[in-house]
């Protein structure tokens, strides 16, 4: 076992389906197994969550995968070195269109129904017609400037040569996404669960495609903490990562994910009904109130066993190549203009070395457990 330097920890999370590893680690007692007494603190906005982490009001937190890089570059905030020793989840976002836009797509393209995943070029006609008739541009929402949601939305649009000048992209908090779709303030959004499923169940949207249809298996949420915290309390970080890794492994089993949906639904966490939380967890993408769901087995992915027992690779490893990929997305989105990106940035932020130390401890512990239980 390991002796954490600090046992009482405050962790931040945003009410989303992919905060499951944090909630599971707490509720299933994985944190306490590692000698940690963790308090989960719900946050309403990513900016506030980030500022609280920077200020030390949160010891560690769930983060959007590009956020530790953005913090370390001082994008939109003070420059603070944030690291990630663990990827918490892959995939999990989807693009949902308002019912009004859905109907507009059918009409302008002379279609009786759409085929999913929806090809972005079907939007092109709508954009052109709106331009000719001098009607307002389409408005799409994403959740944060430095988010995979934003880059995925851009990628999908650019697959049909739709540029950001053809429509407006705004930021809307996930909790308000469904209301915005309904009121017509936005025509579509890229958001994580349970908000897509909620819009479909409420009959106000069409989930056109999931982030898995755009990018396969890229990191979505990561564990973020200050580099200075890790330097001062390395054992605490290992214990924390180990407990969360255990939660990710636990979440690999589908029956366990049903149980997770039940845990997440409580009002202290997502405060949403199980029937909107469960689908993405069990690989089902609700599409439209009149249409059957699509099977997306990796819709929310927290862990994946490797067939090769000796393999050390895992989807939870914060590999450099993933950091480089995110940097390239930030660059494409024009977020790194006038910014000096240090050559070793990804190496200082993505920390597979801590992950591998943690994995050894985790194996060690399971061997001991095996011996004890005979």
């Amino acid at each position: 076992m390991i002796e954490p330097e600090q046992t009482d920890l405050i962790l931040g999370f945003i009410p989303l389906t992919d905060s499951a590893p944090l909630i599971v680690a707490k509720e299933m007692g994985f944190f306490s197994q590692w000698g940690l007494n963790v308090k989960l603190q719900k946050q309403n906005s990513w900016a506030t969550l980030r500022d609280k982490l920077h200020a030390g009001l949160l010891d560690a937190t769930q983060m959007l995968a590009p956020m530790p890089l953005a913090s370390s570059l001082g994008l939109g905030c003070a420059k603070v070195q944030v690291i990630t020793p663990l990827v918490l989840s892959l995939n999990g976002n989807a693009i949902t269109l308002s019912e009004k836009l859905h109907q507009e797509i059918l009409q302008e393209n002379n279609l009786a129904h759409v085929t999913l995943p929806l090809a972005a070029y079907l939007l092109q006609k709508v954009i052109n017609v709106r331009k000719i008739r001098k009607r307002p541009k389409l408005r799409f929402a994403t959740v944060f400037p430095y988010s995979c949601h934003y880059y995925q939305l851009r990628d999908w649009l650019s697959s049909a040569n739709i540029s950001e000048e053809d429509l407006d992209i705004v930021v809307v908090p996930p909790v308000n996404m469904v209301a915005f779709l309904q009121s017509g303030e936005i025509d579509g959004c890229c958001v994580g669960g349970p908000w897509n499923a909620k819009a479909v169940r409420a009959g106000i949207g069409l989930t056109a495609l999931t982030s898995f249809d755009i990018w396969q298996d890229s990191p979505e949420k990561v564990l973020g903490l200050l580099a200075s915290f890790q330097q001062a309390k390395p054992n605490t970080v290992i214990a924390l990562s180990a407990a969360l890794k255990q939660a990710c492994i636990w979440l690999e089993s589908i029956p366990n994910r049903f149980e997770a949906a039940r845990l997440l639904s409580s009002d202290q966490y997502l405060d949403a009904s199980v029937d909107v939380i469960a689908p993405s967890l069990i690989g089902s993408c609700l599409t439209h109130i009149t249409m059957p769901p699509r099977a997306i087995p990796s819709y929310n992915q927290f862990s994946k066993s490797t067939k090769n027992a000796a393999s050390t690779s895992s989807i939870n490893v914060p590999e450099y190549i993933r950091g480089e990929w995110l940097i390239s997305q930030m660059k494409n989105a024009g977020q790194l203009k006038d910014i000096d990106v240090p050559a070793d940035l990804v190496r200082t932020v993505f920390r597979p070395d801590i992950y591998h130390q943690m994995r050894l401890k985790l194996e060690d512990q399971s061997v001991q457990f095996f011996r004890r239980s005979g």
Partner: protein
Amino acid sequence: MAWKDSLQYTSSLKQQKNVIPELRILLIDENRQRAESLTSALNNSRYKINHLANPDMSLLKQVDEIQPDIIVIDIESPSRDILESLSTISHYNPKPIVMFSGEKDTDTINQYIESGVSAYVVGDLQADRVKPILDAAVARFREFQKLKVELSDTKQQLASRNLIDQAKRLLMKKRNLSEDDAFKAMRKTAMDTGQKLDDVAKTLISFLNTI
């Protein structure tokens, strides 16, 4: 109050208004009571408050319509992400943003918020504290914006000087002119055609490079 006095009072109010311009505040706070106490704290001051109790439905529209001079927001509001994006995704004229928070430890957050950019955390909304904080926020924000403009002006000047130097060297090389004559020729063209010197330089560079 006699009518004369009241007239005098109105005209002195008008005078005051002429001296200190009004500043529009967009307050984003779901707590109506707190909003009322802030409004009364700022009564008879140059700050005029627009309160948005349920901001999420119309924040963007409101910012567009009101064009506030300051935005005051509860640090716990989900709308913080919208505000943050205004300066990154949308090309939006930045405003000073003042944040307030129930957290006791706001000073810690405060020290991490990029000084001068926009954000100032107020511990609470006590009447006597609010005005000086708003004044300071506006002043620091303006100072910061001025520095930013100066910086981009300096960058611009450097860039145009580079262009002019480059064009001058090309002229000297290709037309066998002295440095002084090259510069005079460019200046004359600029004056004759009513163009800026760096525009002339740009045209010259592309012209001289193609022939």
